[in-house]
């Protein structure tokens, strides 16, 4: 039996190469997921290590730690890497488990908007602590 995406009828070789089958997407998503995971790895270890040392820090100690350029930069990188990774991961869950096309689209859009809002809030918070105390 010939699968739908194998149909050559109206497709040029390029269109077939770009057609990408039922996933509607090539290896881009997969690769992004790997790259963000590898990027997150040292950043998570850095954050856990730092939090271990900040065990008894009060608000002033913590903000002065976060206000240091190295920490602020790493924290922003952490937020970007982890949120991108989380968006990609949540996208797969929704695509796999929400079966109604309309609801799936709504859910994916809502999820991405929410995650972007959360990420921007995190980055703004770090910048505020870094620049305004």
């Amino acid at each position, binding site marked *: 039996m010939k699968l739908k995406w194998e149909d050559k009828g109206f497709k040029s070789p390029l269109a077939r190469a770009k057609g990408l089958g039922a996933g509607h997407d090539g290896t881009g998503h997969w690769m992004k997921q*790997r790259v963000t*995971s*590898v990027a997150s*790895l040292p950043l*998570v*270890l850095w954050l*856990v290590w730092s*939090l*271990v*040392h*900040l*065990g*008894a820090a*009060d608000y002033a100690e913590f903000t002065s730690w976060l206000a240091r350029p190295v920490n602020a930069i790493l924290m922003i990188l952490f937020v970007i890497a982890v949120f991108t990774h989380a968006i990609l991961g949540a996208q797969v869950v929704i695509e796999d488990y929400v079966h109604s096309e309309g609801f799936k689209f709504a859910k994916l859009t809502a999820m991405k908007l929410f995650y972007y809002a959360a990420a921007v809030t995190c980055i703004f918070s770090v910048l505020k602590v870094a620049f305004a105390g």
Partner: protein
Amino acid sequence: MGGWLGKTVLMGLTFTVFYHLCNGIRHLCWDMGYFFTIENAYRAGYIVIFASIVLTLLSWHLACPYMSGGK
């Protein structure tokens, strides 16, 4: 956060972070073609759980001197 409830939640969070991290490394290994036999896949799975527990306990052990009396 300093109470027993907060600490329990934070400890659980530490474990989930480390579990996700270790299992992510397991998946990256699969992507590179390692651990494809059933028994190796299982073994790596148990190593992941064990490593996550060890890393969680290690983090909290290291954090202990910095947490002066549940602030």
